[in-house]
């Protein structure tokens, strides 16, 4: 995966993608704003949501032990996974133990993150995605580009083509009269997946929340595919990131109110399922829970970045992000794209690592104009801009010992040198005033209002002037004007 600026360049050139994204993010932004607007005390609700998650994280070890104990008492088998590989191995072992060659899956960020489908495929087990968008992505041999709407980059015509081309190879084919009406496409997915639900022996899910005091897992969804996977199979394996823990049943309150409004822009999502281990006579009679670390403890150890683990995966930050809206999710090179991905990936993987993968991770904290729209909508008040700035400092610090000279570091040191003493700055301004006079005489571009400007510059200046004019420096800086016109107040110049 190339670093963000290069990947973004590719995405920006795709006009269909930009059109699809602009339409989709605008639609969902408006829906969210409407339902958030009707909650009188939204800010107080955000504070409560942030506090619930924060208190859970600050006592995470205790809550995890309690969760394990309650789950076990309720008949579930609890597994712990240090990393993706261990988590995938647990799921594969459960599937093998039941002799199945397929599992049905609820949409789950954790299983996407650990590459579960690929790991199961390597064992000869097909993992069927059952969320409509995940199905579109899976059939299209594509990657998800959004946390909530993984196929947000596809429009209806593209989806119809994917269904017509790919459904037959995976099971029940698309009907001959398939149109690109969303209702018709959804009906085709219903028919295609129903035979899989009815025969599946093993279901795989994640969880939105895990209640420590009751051993309850919570899955929030819309389509009912989640309910199918959670209740029809005989065996259920849930892969749960350790940061999903909330201390108490009542603590679900602010989160269940915050999540749907922030996520799909609804007052409540169509279906929320909760279950605590095994219920005799109802649903899977063999229940496994995999508690997953895979970098979460690394993020937890970061004093500033820790708050990112409050994330409830609503994707509100993606939908308001001006960078995401233009580049889409693939440019971030992770199942966690957008502003939250720009902090979560570096926090979980660690910055400053060698090689192209390290460079890709290090590029993510810079994939933001720090406009702050993400913080404004985050239901659990993750201060993403502050974490981005802190991670940038970590990236720079990690590379301070590198061999070779980096232009940016030189420029920053030079700027800091001249900004540390006003006399040095004044000298630099006089130099730029000379350059300004040259430009004013030779510049071919004139800004509205009459000021001369630089057109296309060579070298490093091209990054600016490729599509933007740059005003020529003035003959006289403010500082020089002040000194000339107010000599009495002049001090040491």
């Amino acid at each position, binding site marked *: 995966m190339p670093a963000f600026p290069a990947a973004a360049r590719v995405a920006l050139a795709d006009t269909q993608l930009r059109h*699809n994204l602009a*339409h*989709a993010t605008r*639609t*969902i932004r408006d*829906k969210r704003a409407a339902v958030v607007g009707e909650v*009188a005390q939204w800010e*107080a*609700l955000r*504070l*409560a*949501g942030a506090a619930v998650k924060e*208190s859970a994280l600050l*006592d995470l*070890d205790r809550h995890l*032990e309690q969760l394990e104990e309650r789950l076990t008492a*309720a008949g579930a088998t609890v597994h712990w*996974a240090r990393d993706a590989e261990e988590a995938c191995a647990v799921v594969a072992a459960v599937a093998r133990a039941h002799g199945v060659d397929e599992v049905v899956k609820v949409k789950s960020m954790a299983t996407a993150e650990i590459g579960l489908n690929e790991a199961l495929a390597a064992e000869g087990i097909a993992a069927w995605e059952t969320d*409509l968008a995940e199905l579109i992505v899976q059939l299209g041999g594509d990657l998800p580009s959004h946390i909530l709407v993984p*196929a947000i980059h596809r429009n209806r015509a593209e989806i119809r083509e994917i269904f017509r081309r790919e459904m037959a190879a995976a099971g029940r084919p698309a009907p001959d009269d398939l149109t690109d009406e969303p*209702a018709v496409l*959804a009906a085709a997915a*219903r028919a295609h997946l*129903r035979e899989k*639900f*009815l025969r599946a022996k093993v279901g795989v899910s994640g969880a939105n929340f895990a209640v420590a005091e*009751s051993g309850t897992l919570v899955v929030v969804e819309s*389509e*009912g*595919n989640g*309910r*199918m996977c959670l*209740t*029809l199979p005989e065996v259920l394996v849930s892969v749960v990131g*350790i940061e999903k823990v909330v201390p108490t*049943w*009542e*603590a*679900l*309150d602010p989160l269940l*109110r915050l999540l*749907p409004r922030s996520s*799909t822009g609804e*007052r*409540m*999502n*169509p*279906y*929320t*399922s*909760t*279950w605590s281990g095994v*219920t005799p006579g*109802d*649903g899977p009679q063999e229940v496994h829970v995999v508690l997953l*670390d895979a970098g979460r*403890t690394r993020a*937890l*150890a970061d*004093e500033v970045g820790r708050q990112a683990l409050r994330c409830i995966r609503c994707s509100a930050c993606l939908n308001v992000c001006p960078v995401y809206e233009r580049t889409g999710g693939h440019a971030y090179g992770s199942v966690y794209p957008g502003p939250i991905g720009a902090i979560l990936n570096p926090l979980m993987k660690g910055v400053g690592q060698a090689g192209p993968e390290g460079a890709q991770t290090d590029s993510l904290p810079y994939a933001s104009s720090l406009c702050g729209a993400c913080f404004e909508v985050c239901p659990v008040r993750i201060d993403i801009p502050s974490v981005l700035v802190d991670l940038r400092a970590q990236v720079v610090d990690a590379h301070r010992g590198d061999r070779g000279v980096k232009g940016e570091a030189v420029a920053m040191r030079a700027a800091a040198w001249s900004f540390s003493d006003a006399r040095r700055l004044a000298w630099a301004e006089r130099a730029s005033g000379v350059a300004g006079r040259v430009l004013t005489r030779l510049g071919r571009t004139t800004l509205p209002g009459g000021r001369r400007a630089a057109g296309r510059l060579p070298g490093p200046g091209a990054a600016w002037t490729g599509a933007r004019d740059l005003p020529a420096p003035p003959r006289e800086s403010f500082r020089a004007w002040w000194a000339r016109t107010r000599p009495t107040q002049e001090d040491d110049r």
Partner: protein
Amino acid sequence: MSAREEVLGRVRAALADVAPQARAAVAPTAPRVPERPHHEVVDLFCERVADYRAVVERCAVDELGDRVAAALAGAARVVVPPGLADVALPPGLTVVVDGEPDVLGAAELDAVDAVVTAARVGIAETGTVVLDHAPDQGRRALTLVPDLHVCVVREEQVVADVPDALPLLDPARPLTWISGPSATSDIELSRVEGVHGPRTLHVLVVADREG
């Protein structure tokens, strides 16, 4: 070292900088909607459920039989949970009681047109019906596989908001929170009702006996 010990050890190490008083800091209480008369709460519930394009009807206790019959007009085979005593089903339908004598398999459920159940709690602010799968609501699969779900909610079961509902619910039981019919917005964010769950949700809100 086991994965369990190692992960817990990493968690403790990661939190080494956190002062005990920071851990003890009390979470602010989530805000509540202003109290209002119960009849207004029920009105809001009906309005909000209808907003999801579910069918919502209010009726008196003695009208319930007729309303259920009307709601089931297009169905031939209906499944009911074993404990649904209050609701009389119309004649002329094939009524299957789940668990008498056997529970239905997934394929058998798929061959049923509709399901009639009670509910545990209604939440007005969000337009949500919560099932706790007691005998009058049946197993989770019952309200999932058939294409029509007729759900009977008594007015007294309706509460104002999520924080009012949680203490009434037992987390040890499986719960299903239902807000409108199955839906998706995965294609260009345009909402389509009916993917895998029931494509029609018909909620009958029954007036309190005394009122």
